[in-house]
């Protein structure tokens, strides 16, 4: 019977080389990938204007991923809840559920004039006046709607503040 050849046993790798490589990789990863934020958009009654500008932001020209920013579908995967709209009474529960489903540490960004304080809808029977009425808001980005460049500047500021 013909015996199949087997690979020969080898010696353990040099621990010093591994440690040094690991250190370099960690440093590079920390610099390049260390600060990233997963963003979940939460619409609390927007007119779709802020959403238009957010969608524009996800286009090739702005290329969010180079900053470590990405949009996710589940609050459970998010670091940031990016809230648009004046927070209608009909969406309060949905926002609270999204907040509860987002793991700590988490940030709330109020995007657009409506989300900042209710905007033109402030004080109306159907709105609560932005996420600040029910949640702690960490950052507000004003504008009706804010341009993609302005949104990006706000998110990058949050990123910088959040970097190690």
């Amino acid at each position: 019977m013909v015996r199949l050849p087997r690979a020969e046993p080898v010696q353990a790798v040099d621990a010093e080389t591994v440690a040094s490589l690991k250190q370099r990789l960690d440093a590079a990863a920390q610099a390049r990938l260390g600060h990233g934020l997963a963003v979940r958009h939460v619409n609390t009654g927007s007119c779709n204007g802020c959403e238009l500008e957010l969608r524009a932001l996800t286009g090739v020209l702005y290329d969010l991923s180079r900053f470590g920013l990405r949009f996710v579908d589940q609050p459970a995967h998010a670091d940031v809840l990016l809230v648009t709209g004046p927070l209608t009474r009909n969406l309060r529960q949905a926002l609270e559920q999204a907040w509860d489903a987002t793991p700590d540490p988490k940030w709330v960004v109020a995007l657009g004039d409506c989300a900042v304080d209710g905007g033109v809808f402030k004080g109306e029977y159907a709105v609560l006046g932005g996420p600040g009425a029910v949640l702690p808001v960490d950052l507000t980005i004003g504008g009706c709607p804010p341009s993609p460049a302005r949104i990006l500047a706000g998110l990058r500021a949050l990123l910088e503040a959040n970097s190690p």
Partner: protein
Amino acid sequence: MNMLPPALRDATMEACQPWARFDLTALQWSALARDPVTLLSAWADTARVYALYRHRPSGLILPVSVAPDDGSYPALSIWHPVAAWYERTIHDLWGHVPAGGDTRPWLDHGHWPQTAVMAARPGPPSVAAEPPEFQEVGDGTFMQWPIGPLTAGIGEAGHLRLTLDGTRIVRAESRLGYTHKGTLLLMRGKSPRVAARFAARLAGDATVAHSVAFAVATEMALTLQAPPRAVALRSLMGGLERIATLLDDLTSLAGLLGDARAHGYCGEQQEYVRRGLAGAFGHRLMMDGVVPGGVAGEPDANGLSVLRQVLDGLAESLLAIRRLFGNGLLAARLSGLGVADRQLVETLGVEGIVAEAGRFGGDAAARCSARLDAIARDTEACIGLLSALPEGPLAIALPANSGEGIGYAASARGTVWHWLRLDHGQIAAVFPTDPGWALWPLAEATLAGAAAGDAAAIQCSLGLPVSGMDL
């Protein structure tokens, strides 16, 4: 007058521009609903319930009204299924009861401090927020797939309940009203100039269309006309808005179906248009650019010439975009996806892209093709307008008069209708109608029978606006 439907021949006519309103008895109201008419909208004020029809044989636009008797009026939804959500809205806001119709809440989810907020005497708040009831399907063994109100991706808030048999959708039922902001109460009692800010915030992707329809309705009520330069600038802005919105639709659809090339290409063109708009009109969406009486400001001359270059560039790249959507995997995914029933499109009064696509099979591929055709048409029209803008004043002053008027404008989703009544320069009653009212019922019917995994793409390809109809 011979062209009038028989139900209207003895009716009282009220002054409304440009179409007189017929004030009907309950009997005439029901009789007209049985005529060959398409219901375009229905609304109310404290004293009356209104409906706007298109008479199919003659093409006449017919605004009609009926005074509720003891708080109730004959329901139109018996003959016009599309009326059901209007009737529920009227019941939620004004408290008028549709006799024989559906009075389940639509906009009022039980969270407001009052009920019938627009009525002469609003009611006490409803006791508890009940979970919405959805129609039972079959023997109750089917799986229910609730989607929303917070949906995946970056979009609007609405709830869709899919009943599934395996992976096939048996029934789709939507529940909207989540984004209701109380816009109508905010507009009531204000001058048209102030209320225009709310009209501009009904739907972000149709802010110009809503602003134009509102401005025209105001001008009609006051029997005025905006100056020629304002009219031309409104056409230009309307066309540019449709181009940008249609490009956004194509970008979103390509992104959803995972075609990075088409997503990148359409998104790039859209962004160039938006930047051009910011340069010319000072706002990427042209929000508040159209006001009752004319337009808000003079566009930047240099910005307009940049915009012209952007449009030339877009016209050149349309062929490449068309190839991306017409070939390869994207075409294979779109072909046969979400075929909209032609008969239903007509019954519901759906217009715009979805109606045009009916001529080419009515699937998502046809809708993409219709969008590209519309972009090409609007681009050509806008280039023409840019090279021949009339000189003259931008706006006229509005007198504090009374009157009733109707205005309309084309958005990327179909026709936007605004009706309003002015009382000595203040808005006594107003109702904006978004194309979403007709598109959502069509979406429900189109989703039935489709694969569950295709639901998001079908919705996206139909282009369903929410905020404009949630008011």
